[in-house]
């Protein structure tokens, strides 16, 4: 099957790649571009571990075709920190121990970043429903919610 040539922007950098027409964006990111931060937990859009932001919209990259990235902006976990400087959400996840095994963490961070971009001052309930598309099996979510609350207050003050 002939490959599709795609030009896109990933974490602010211009990127070109060839992919199969039926190849998911998640597989392109992980297998062709070496961006393994997004994880495949289910491949059916149920776990959120592969969350990325596509043109300001939170999506499961396992439900997007690689070819659909043409001409669009992709943000992944690899672009969240600015060099050595962690995003406040990353910092607060560390401080609150909002991760144990960490496999869901990239997805949660991306989803939380999207949530705070749209709602900088969420209630606990809004955080819980805003992150309900991401599964975590280790933490019981308590420390994740607290980390997001703390990050929101830091970001508001900034």
């Amino acid at each position, binding site marked *: 099957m002939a490959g599709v040539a795609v030009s896109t922007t990933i974490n602010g950098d211009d990127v070109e790649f060839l992919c199969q027409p039926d190849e998911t964006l998640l597989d392109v990111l992980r297998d062709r571009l070496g961006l393994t931060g997004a*994880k495949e937990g289910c*491949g059916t859009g149920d776990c959120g571990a592969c969350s990325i932001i596509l043109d300001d919209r939170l999506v499961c990259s396992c439900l997007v075709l690689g070819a659909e990235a043409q001409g669009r902006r992709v943000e992944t976990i690899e672009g969240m920190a600015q060099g050595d400087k962690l995003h406040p959400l990353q910092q607060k996840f560390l401080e609150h121990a909002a991760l144990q*095994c960490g496999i869901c963490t990239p997805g949660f961070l991306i989803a939380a970043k999207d949530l705070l971009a749209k709602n900088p001052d969420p209630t606990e309930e809004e955080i819980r429903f805003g*992150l309900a598309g991401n599964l975590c*099996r280790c933490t019981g979510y*308590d420390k994740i919610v607290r980390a997001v609350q703390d990050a929101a207050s830091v970001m508001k003050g900034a």
Partner: protein
Amino acid sequence: MGFDPRYLERNFTSVGTRPIRPDGLDKVTGRARYGADFNMAGQLVGAILRSPHAHAKIRNIDTSKAEKLAGVKAVITSADLPDLTDGNSEMYAILDNCMAREKALYDGHAVAAVAAVDARTARKALKLIEIDYEVLPHVTDVDEAMKPTAPVLHETVFTEGVEPKPGKPSNVAKRTQYGHGDIEAGFGQADFIVERSFKTEQTHQGYIEPHACVANANSDGTAELWVCTQGHFVYRQHCAELLGMEVSKLRVTSSEIGGGFGGKTHVWAEPVALALSRKAGRPVKLVMTRDEVFRASGPTSATSIDVKIGARKDGTITAASATLRYSCGPYYGMWAELGAMTAFACYNLENVETVGYEVLVNRPKVAAYRAPSAPMAAFAVESAVDELAKSIGMDPVDFRIKNAAREGTRSSYGPVYGPIGIGPTLEAARNHPHMQAPLGKNQGRGMACGFWFNFGGQTCTDLNVGTDGSVSLAVGTMDVGGSRASLSMVAAEELGIAYEHVKAVVADTSSLGYNDMTDGSRGTFSTSLATISAARNAIKVLRERAAQTWDIPVDDVAWEKGHAVAKGEKYGNLPALSLKEIAAGAGNTGGPIAGHSELVADGAGVSFATHICDIEVDPETGATRVLRYTVLQDAGKAVHPTYVEGQYQGGAAQGIGWALNEEYIYGKDGRLQNAGFLDYRIPVCSDLPMIDTQILEIPNPNHPYGVRGVGETSIVPPLAAIANAVSNAAGVRMTHIPMSPPRILATIKAEQAG
């Protein structure tokens, strides 16, 4: 190594603090490498063909078409994994589970595998493999499987543990019995007796990371395996045994692990990946899909349990008995036995008897799931205990306190307890503000207790002092919940240096001696013992080097706060030598400085917890909402309290999912109908409230700091605590887990109908 009471008076410098984990940065930036994040040059993609039948004889497998497909480099069947197990039935079960031999024993059982240049070709090749099945009658329900009329999975299985040996094969692999006293006499003294039957459905550990590995078998007989596992030394052992290799020729590197909870303690795909690599002559990456994870990897047992408990009017339990039937999947496991051992472990009982039956069914091979088998037994027992307290008219907490096991109690499974935490967690629960929180309409409060043994096991640790005085700690127990942080803290504590100067890594199997896997809540308990021992060995060397430098007897050198100190008036002028100074001079005093430790970590202190929860039940739909949840558990000594809280919260959340939602649903055809996260629904963020925790510290007498394992007990009480809360909210006794809305509604309606 016994508990050192001096630590009680001592101010810990590292232990008990809450530093950021050393693996944290990689995990928040996406750099941490898990099972599927590793690749090798020339790597092929592996895929496994699985049986669509619950029970079928494999008459013939024709792989010729698949082999001819362009891009396919290897196709294997059980013929490529010959039986080298030499009569070891446990290893044979693992082998047969990795690749079905004569029969497929469950929907999802592996029957063949391919390695191809890419995933698409591999999937296409699977479709070209032709299998001639003779479909056999199947059984998936634990009670059905015990009936004399049930289809028998193995003609070779005759129930063990019964006299005389049965004349006919059956699905009951083993009977076990625990207890002491005379239960008939005990029930005779009872004023009140509660007798009930309970069922729990099969659940999955639900780790978010599917099993994944990269195998590279070389033509010189060596091999490497990169894999997400809770025990890379055990995986090495199993793979080497199944493939006929010497263990030293197989180097296993554990990746970061994306959750295990007991489910990554057994090999499934790894021997297959190695066999594919051996046949193809190239590295092979094998990653399970979520569908495969559900259909073919580690669920817990489904159970059917009868409980009977009697008590006098004053609230003293006079006798307790239980019969526990646990499904094992198609191969024997000691699952009912663990249920029988743990069922009444919280109580001080004169007369107690439990009987366990291991039942074979056409479902995936059961794997450990966090305190395996204990939550279901606790559900049955703690539900009955609550009901009994109600019959007597006693508060459920007071009733449990009256009957709680204590130091000196002979446990229901045999040993006599040392200092334990069941009484203290119950007292703490009674005094917890949660108990006074107001409840509204349709809301109920429940509580329950839980027990887990905790394990120790073989452990080996290397502590190397760098030339700059910083310390590398190589451990062999996989870090599943922050143990690299807690073990670095322990090393820092012993050496008297800052946490920041210690870096712990999980060493591969070629770099360190054998370690048992991270199970039984043993990671921090056992490896901290080995780390303390290794650090003390290093301190001995450091003292010798200082003595040599000073030219004084080593017995006159003490180790204090990270420094060698010359003891005695005569050495008054000698300034203390820091670890850093001694390390810098090591080249002139005898070479590198290190401490090693190899031990069997005996004496893991038993663990107890009490949980309280508030549930609202919608009487019209049967839907539930968790309003409040509190975990009170004995940690012995919390090395990193935040991570201990995390274990408490995580176990509670898994228990809540088990209690309310999660279950394997099989169709009449014996096929799993909900092999995905959409239909097998684990709790999401909006399902749960904050989970409050209280850490109690009753020192383990077998650890210098008093540490006990903390990982597993937190999943034991939730099923019962929630069932008791639902019972109090809706006025009905729930006896079937999960308490999904249809089940609750049906129970309410049945109650109303009288």
